[in-house]
């Protein structure tokens, strides 16, 4: 029988806490930036201009159909060599994760927008509103209700995806866990704790999102 030894990890509480902070901060930035990227890509997809549609399509497919780990390594190692763009590991992680998440958000947002009855857009246009006004005042406020469950789901995936940035030596929760594991020779305990921390953050967050969604639905 394996004998669990959690006590030894108490010495590592601060670095695990630091790692958690980095993970949460990273997640927040890539969700906000990713949503922005996704919104722009989705609007470009729905644009009347062929160039916008094509560009957005290329972006979405490129990021959606490439493994995140490959993208992370490529952005960090290849970009400086090819284009002379030097980034810190943290910046590279934020950029890659935002673009990657954005490509998935884009499809969710586009789906939410086109699921709305065309008559809503026409009613806005008939009043004399410009297309962007119609989008902001009429379409998006309604579409957001339909998008919020899949957006939430994607954001949870984004949260967990941040663990991959440890390959770039960004000191996130998993990276700090790895440090503790090699120090203590107690990987089982360390990774169990790391998993529990992820769980402790995400479960209340999903519960909160569920309630927000419920409220949103009731408001109509």
């Amino acid at each position, binding site marked *: 029988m394996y004998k669990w030894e959690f006590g030894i990890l108490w010495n590592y509480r601060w670095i695990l806490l630091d790692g958690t902070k980095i993970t949460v901060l990273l997640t927040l930035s890539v969700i906000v930036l990713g949503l922005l990227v996704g919104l722009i890509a989705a609007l470009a997809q729905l644009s009347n201009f062929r160039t916008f549609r094509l560009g957005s399509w290329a972006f979405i497919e490129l990021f959606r159909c490439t493994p995140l780990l490959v993208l992370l390594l490529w952005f960090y190692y290849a970009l400086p060599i090819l284009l002379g763009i030097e980034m810190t590991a943290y910046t590279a992680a934020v950029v890659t994760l935002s673009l990657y998440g954005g490509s998935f958000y884009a499809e969710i947002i586009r789906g939410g927008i086109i699921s709305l009855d065309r*008559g809503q857009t026409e*009613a806005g*246009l008939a*009043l*004399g509103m410009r297309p962007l006004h119609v989008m902001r005042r009429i379409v998006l406020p309604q579409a957001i209700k339909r998008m919020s469950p899949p957006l939430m789901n994607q954001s949870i995936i984004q949260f967990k995806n941040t663990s991959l940035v440890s390959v770039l030596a960004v000191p996130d929760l998993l990276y700090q866990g790895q440090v503790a594991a090699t120090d203590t020779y107690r990987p089982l305990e360390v990774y169990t704790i790391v998993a529990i921390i992820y769980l402790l953050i995400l479960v209340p967050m999903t519960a909160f999102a569920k309630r927000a969604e419920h409220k949103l639905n009731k408001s109509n």
Partner: protein
Amino acid sequence: MNQPVQPKINVRGIRKQFGDLIVLRHIDLDVMAGEVVALIGPSGSGKSTLLRCLNLLTIPDNGELRIGEDSFVFGKGSRLPGAKVQASFRSRTGMVFQHFNLFPHMTVLQNVMEGPLTVKGMSKTKAQELANQLLAKVGLAEKAQEYPDFLSGGQKQRVAIARALAMEPSVMLFDEATSALDPELVAEVLQVMRDLAREGMTMIIVTHEIAFAREVASKVIFMRDGVIVEQGPALQVIDQPAEEATRSFLSHFHTRS
């Protein structure tokens, strides 16, 4: 000397095709200010498409369109009017849809205020005053704070009319405004339209309510297969149609109520 009066609306040679389907073949139409024109005809005749062309929700392939001071030429060699021009043009015509298309995330009052607020940049107080006034006019003052989902179809359509009127349009377009309503709710909407006509609003009405067209319209236009088959004073077209096609279409309706 009699000054020749210029029509409010001029349509010349409007043509529209969706894929292989020619929906409008060559439409000429004049509407005088204050005139109420009823567009009737079987479904698929192109009457709704013609109406939508009048506020550019559908852009014609060819032809010319003028409403008041705004005029457009469509077809080869002419540029599509930009989004800004289209928007300002549409702000001067009101459109009422078959399925109401009220904004469900806004209250009735907010629905009516939306146009004046965002398009005209009217102040909130003024927009609210105007909206309340118009809601009273369509008999729905007490519903101002409700959301559209809690209204009956007839009430929704009356709000939609108030919303369109809030832009103070010079022309009102009605696209089968009573077709989606339960029979007992049709009358209240027709009453609002009748009142508008009496006030001298220029109106173009796509409708299946033949008796209403006969009573309210000054001119009736019968369309079939993308062309205007017959047009003239309402009583003449409906009571003594000249064309066989008109006669056969009208035979499906009780025209005197």
